[in-house]
Structures are given as C-alpha cells and as structure tokens.
C-alpha cells in the first residue's frame, strides 16, 4: 500500500484527491493536513511515498516554503506540487518538488503517482 500525504486546505480539493486515489487500491490516503506546519509534523509520522502539496495553505508558510524541509525529512518521498497557481511552476524548477501539476489537470494525478511509485520500485 502506497501512502499519500495530502497537504491541502480546500475541502472540495481534499475530497477530489481522496476520490482519485480511491480508484487504485494500491494507494491509501495516510493523512490530510491543511498547513505547512502540520505537514512537517505528519511526514515523520506517516512516512508517505507521495506528498500531494498545495501552494496556498493555511498558516504563514506556503507549500513551496516547506517543500525543501519535507524533502530533507523524507528524501525518498516524491512531492507533487498540485496547485491552481500556474505562476508557481517557474519557481519549482530545480527545486525540491518532483512534479508540478495544475489542479485543472487532476486526471493526470493518479497516472503520475502510479508512474512515480513504479519507478521507485514500489509497484
């Protein structure tokens, strides 16, 4: 079972991500948090294979602010920056996030997660 940590503060998008991953029984949502601070705490406890990270979060820090710290805490974990902010893509180049995905392209989320876990040898 591949664990997913969802860092997202919009309840509808949380539901969407849960519904998408429920289509593949090899994935399970380990935890859903709404802020960067909670994500730091959750990553150690859940040891997820994938983090679906929003940019605009509750609290002071953005998803981009916390991405490096998450990567340092869990170097094997793949981070998907999943946001409606298209302008953030340029800032994720050569950064700690592995994939940038616009929220309007959510149908690519599951195939990307499958591909990432396969490449990691988890599948």
């Amino acid at each position, binding site marked *: 079972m591949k664990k997913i940590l969802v860092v997202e503060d919009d309840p*509808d*998008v949380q539901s*969407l991500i849960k519904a998408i991953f429920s289509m593949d029984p090899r994935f399970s949502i380990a935890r859903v948090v709404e802020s960067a601070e909670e994500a730091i705490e959750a990553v150690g406890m859940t040891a997820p294979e994938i983090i679906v990270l929003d940019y605009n979060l509750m609290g002071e820090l953005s998803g981009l602010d916390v991405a490096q710290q998450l990567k340092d805490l869990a170097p094997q974990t793949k981070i998907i920056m999943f946001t*409606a902010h298209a302008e953030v893509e340029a800032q994720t180049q050569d950064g700690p996030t592995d994939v940038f995905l616009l929220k309007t392209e959510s149908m690519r989320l599951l195939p990307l997660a499958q591909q990432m876990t396969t490449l990691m040898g988890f599948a």
Partner: protein
Amino acid sequence: MAVSTLTNRETMAHKDMAHKDTSSRVNVAGAHLDDAATEAADYTRAILNILDDIGEEREKQAESQRAVLNILEDIDTDKIRLQSTQKALLNILDDFDAERLKADRANIDLRVVNEAMGSFIDVAAHDLRSPLASMVGFSSLLTENWATLSEQNRLKFVSTINRQSHKLADLVNDLLTLSSIEGGVLRAQPESIVLSEAISACLAAASGDTASVSVSCAPHLVAWVDPNHLERIIDNYVQNAFKYGDPPVRIEVTYLSGTVEIRVIDHGPGVPPEFKSKLFGKFARADVPNTRDKKGSGLGLSIVRGLAEANGGLARYEPILPHGSCFLVILPESEPGQQ
C-alpha cells in the same frame, strides 16, 4: 637826492641822451614790440591752435568716452540679454527637471499598475481555476467510473460540481461587471427609488438570516440610483455583515443636504486597521482566521464602489468603536440639477 644835484645842462644832456636813448630805445622797442606782437600773435595762434587741438582732443576723448559708454551700455544690454537667456535656460532646465520628475512618477505609477495587473491576473487565474479544478476533476471521475461509483459518491460529486459551477459563474459575472466598470462602459440607469421599499425587497430576496436585520428608514426617503445597482450594493453589504461580522445587523438611512446615506452596521470584530486601505480594492481579502473559510470572489466591494460612483455617489467604510463595522453608500437624493 643825487638827481637833484645835477645841473640843468647835465639834466638836459641827460634828457637828450635819454631822449636819444629813448628814441633809439623806442625804435628798438618798436621793433621789439612788433616782433613780440608777432611772436605773441604766433604764440596766441599756437595757443589757440593748441587750444583748438585740446578742444579737438577733448571732443575726441568725449567721443571715445561716449563710444566707451555706448560699448558699456551695449555690454550691459548684452549682459542683461545673457542674464535673461541664462534665466530662460535655467527655467527650461527647471521645466526639464519637472518633466523628468513627472515622467519618473508616471513610470513608477505604470510599474505599480503593471504589478497590480500582474497580481490581478495571477489571482483571477487562480480563482477561476479553483472551481474549474473541482468541476473537471469530479466530472472526469464520474465519466470514467460511473458504473463502479456508489450512488452516494455520485450524488456527492455532482453536488460539488453544481456548487463550484455556481461559484465560477458568480466570479465570471463579477469579473465582467468589474471590467465594464473599469472600462467605463457600465451605464447606470438611475431613477427615483423609495429606499424603504427597495431595502425590504432586497432583504426578502437575499439568502441567509436577513429577516433579523432591523431597518431604520423614513418612508418618504428616496435616492436617484439604478435599482439593480442599489440592490447589488445593499446585498453585498448585508452578505458581508453576516459573513465577516456578528449580529445584530441593522440598516440605517439618513438624509443629509441633497444626499441619502445608507449604512449597514454589524457588531463583528471590524476590519483590521492595516487592511482598511485595501478594503475596496480588487481581490481584497483580509488574511485573518475568520475569513479563511469564507472565501468570496474578493471583488464585491470593488464592484460596490464602482457602482456607487457610476450613480454619482460613493462607498465608504467606518469602524464602529469599540467593535463593529459600518459600510455606507452615499447617493444623490434626486437627479443632479433637479434639486
């Protein structure tokens, strides 16, 4: 005394001698006088010539002096001209500096406008994408997994699509309204509106607990305003009072020298002081905990201000102490020029 002792002869001789002597002397003296006269005349002429020369010299000097004075005057004139040219140049330089400052300020203004436009586009794009994300995502799930989805999930997904599509429609309408306000194409069609009736109708049509709103408005009070715009303004203020403020919410209408003031008052925490200047701006949302889960389009108050101004009025915020908010709109009581 020696003379008196001389004899007559001697005296005569003396006289003769003296006469001879005198005569010769006279002759000599005459010659001398002639010479002297000539000489004197020569001298006189010379002197006169010299005097003439001196006069000429003086005249020449005077002329030279005049010429010098003229030159000096010319120099003065030229100096004055130069000074005025210098002043003109300095003025031109001052004007140039002023123009440069204006251009610098205009550049700064343009940069600010560009940054605001860039930020507006980013926020608009994000806010348009967010409801679209849910609509696209859930409709894709439904399409691809209809058969395997439970009835409960289907209903849940469809209701999310429905809610988000309304949110998107509201946002698109707000963006279009704001564009027409900013583009100067929004035309108000004002008429005389009885405010007590308009406010009651607006509250009846609004969602939420608007029945609890108390209204203080004299029945005869009217405003010269587009009825649709007035409805939008009151609805926005009342919805904001319930979203961000606390009850009781009340509406007060007062008349003040040719204008009417409509105030929507709540007893919530009020607007944070640092956010007041941005309150009527585009995508204005105070980043405070109680607004987190109450995301509107962020365009409501900028539309209210635009609509108020399109109707010859203005929109304003006033804090209520110790806590609470008062949003007011000031509108003309009658058609301008008809009072």
